[in-house]
């Protein structure tokens, strides 16, 4: 790369051809790094009557990256270069038909799933879009730049790179009609610096949990609050059963869970059913109701790819549902094994392994060895394996999926670990072992726990307090990892806290808490000046 001057004497970066840049790549110049939070593509098509049609690609599950555009190999450069390798433009000539699109290739280095941010974070450093070196930058108005033009029989077709500022959603939408392969490189040095910076941030400075927003409006206790994975929406469910939900659920809605795409919301109710809601923009529509449990459904969870749903109930069973097309859901499996009320069910963040925790004081792990949908209980974590001595209320995984935290009526949080690389490589089931127990921090039932993507564990309990814990980073060969209390927010609510959940946004450390006092509060973890 080198710096060049354009006609108006401003500098910009220019990409040279080299082995790693395909001649059909596209580049966007001179966009200040700090302004970019969102990059997308728009496809401008010209239809048969010569009218220019603007359309955004139908996202479905085609997210490629979940990071803002990053800087070039010159760390001081203000410019950003967005590189997408091997961009193959559509052929000129001939008209465009609706079906005239190349398919997005399923190459492994292209499909870093939106729903597997952990895997993504391991490899992502920069996403570049590089135009052929002899192309000049074409600046559109404001935030738009063109990648290039293709001439078709019915007129010009323009590929635009749209850059917009969006505080929430960081991602790419792929341009229909172009096959794109994205390559990732691991920059260990940058990662180390970033992690060090964040750790120092956590341990050396004074941290406070500041209430940034209070959401009132429920007239009864709030059981659960869940952040949408892709947009700034928070779903909360309450005993008060709002007007919309009342038509579907006849009793308390106990918990809710967004699908990985953020388009669907599943709600679990004491009326024994689980409802699936679709986000239609200005309202939610119930597209399906799953029946089968004998009594109250306590929890619902989507797997990483959104192809399976799991529910659990006081009837002691865990059900796995297959997500078929056309709003159809089929019961794939009924798992018995717990001897009491099952409180929560949760899929592993990267593997199709299911976890459940129960009033019977145990955590069970369910897995289908042959991938044929025949799930079995492959492990039970009980008191004999350093497990809990009373009802286990919640489970949460770290971003990498190799550690999990559970919380209980026994007033403790427990950290567990497993060698999941073994499972990723297909060597069979890797068992979970107890790593650490956190006790003495809450003196009433701990109802909820959540592990943030930057490794802070939050807990919410019946003592009205929120606890935050971090790895002490002291590697004790005998006792294993240990965790320290980062801070405890006493009287975070006026009554029991039923749910805590970190926001998926990487921009700031936001935590949502839901309580018996009918409120949902949003907190920000900040350093005190």
């Amino acid at each position, binding site marked *: 790369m080198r710096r060049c001057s354009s006609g108006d004497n401003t500098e910009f970066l220019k990409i040279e051809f080299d082995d790693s840049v395909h001649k059909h790549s596209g580049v966007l110049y001179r966009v200040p790094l700090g302004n970019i939070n969102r990059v997308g593509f728009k496809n401008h098509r010209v239809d048969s009557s010569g009218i220019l049609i603007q359309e955004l690609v139908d996202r479905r599950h085609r997210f490629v990256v979940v990071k803002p555009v990053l800087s070039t190999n010159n760390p001081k450069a203000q410019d950003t270069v967005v590189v997408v390798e091997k961009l193959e433009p559509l052929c000129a000539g001939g008209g465009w038909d609706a079906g005239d699109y190349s398919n997005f290739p399923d190459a492994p280095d292209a499909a870093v799933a939106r729903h597997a941010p952990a895997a993504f974070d391991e490899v992502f450093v920069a996403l570049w879009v590089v135009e052929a070196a002899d192309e000049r930058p074409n600046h559109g108005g404001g935030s738009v730049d063109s990648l290039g033009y293709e001439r078709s029989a019915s007129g010009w077709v323009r590929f635009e790179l749209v850059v917009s500022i969006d505080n929430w959603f960081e991602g790419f939408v792929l341009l229909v009609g172009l096959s794109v392969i994205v390559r990732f490189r691991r920059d260990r040095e940058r990662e180390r610096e970033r992690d060090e910076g964040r750790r120092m941030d956590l341990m050396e400075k004074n941290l406070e949990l500041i209430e940034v927003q209070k959401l009132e409006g429920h007239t009864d206790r709030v059981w659960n609050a869940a952040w949408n994975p892709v947009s700034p929406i928070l779903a909360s469910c309450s005993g008060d059963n709002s007007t919309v939900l009342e038509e579907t659920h006849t009793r308390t809605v106990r918990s809710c869970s967004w699908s990985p795409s953020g388009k669907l919301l599943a709600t679990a109710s*004491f009326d024994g059913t689980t409802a699936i809601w679709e986000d239609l923009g200005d309202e939610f529509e119930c597209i399906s109701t799953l029946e089968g449990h004998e009594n109250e459904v306590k929890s619902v969870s989507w797997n990483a790819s959104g192809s399976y749903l799991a529910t659990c109930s006081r009837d002691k069973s865990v059900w796995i549902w297959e997500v078929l097309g056309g709003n159809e859901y089929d019961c794939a499996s009924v798992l018995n094994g717990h001897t009491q009320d099952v409180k929560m069910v949760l899929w592993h963040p990267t593997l199709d392994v299911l976890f459940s925790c129960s009033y019977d004081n145990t955590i069970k792990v369910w897995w289908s060895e042959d991938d044929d949908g025949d799930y079995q209980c492959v492990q039970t974590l009980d008191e004999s394996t350093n497990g809990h001595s009373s009802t286990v209320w919640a489970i949460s995984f770290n971003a990498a999926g190799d550690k999990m935290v559970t919380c209980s009526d026994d007033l403790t949080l427990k950290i567990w670990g497993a060698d999941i690389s073994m499972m990723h490589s297909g060597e069979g089931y890797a068992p979970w072992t107890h790593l650490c127990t956190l006790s003495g921090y809450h003196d009433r039932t701990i109802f909820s726990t959540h592990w943030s993507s930057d490794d802070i564990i939050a807990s919410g309990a019946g003592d009205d307090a929120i606890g935050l814990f971090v790895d002490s980073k002291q590697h004790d060969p005998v006792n294993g990892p240990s965790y320290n209390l980062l801070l405890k927010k006493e009287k975070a609510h006026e009554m029991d806290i039923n749910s805590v959940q970190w926001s998926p946004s990487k921009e700031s450390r936001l935590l949502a808490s839901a309580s018996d006092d009918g409120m949902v509060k949003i907190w920000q973890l900040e350093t005190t000046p």
Partner: protein
Amino acid sequence: MTLGLLNANPVVQAKKERLARTQDQHRDYDGLDTLDTKYVRDIRDPEHPYSLEQLSVLSEDSITLDDKLNRILITFTPTIQHCRMATIIGLCLRAKLKECLPLHYKVDIRVSPGSHADEDSVNKQLNDKERVVAALENPNLRQLVDECICSNEI
């Protein structure tokens, strides 16, 4: 005829004299322990037409209050070891207290140690908030509980 009542012959105590309450004792929740017994001791037993106090299920010692932390512990004594109504009595206590106490009070309910064969199981159920809420949403249970707590006594 005693159709299916487990404890057909409960021992019934005379109702304790209600002391005339002075102005001071009414007002706020400082003297909460004495006011509490007032709320709960007249709860009717699910099986017999007597109050929990009359059946010695509850007494003045039943309630322990922690004023600073706003926590209350209620201990009750089912009339017999295998009382099947233990959980119902517990639910009645919870439902009644929810009506009477400030919302932020935390209530723990237990059977008196040694008074019930399934002591741990009953205690666990009565102190599982989610189970209590679900039970009280059950129309049949709710009706039974309402009958017990809506006493005609003053």
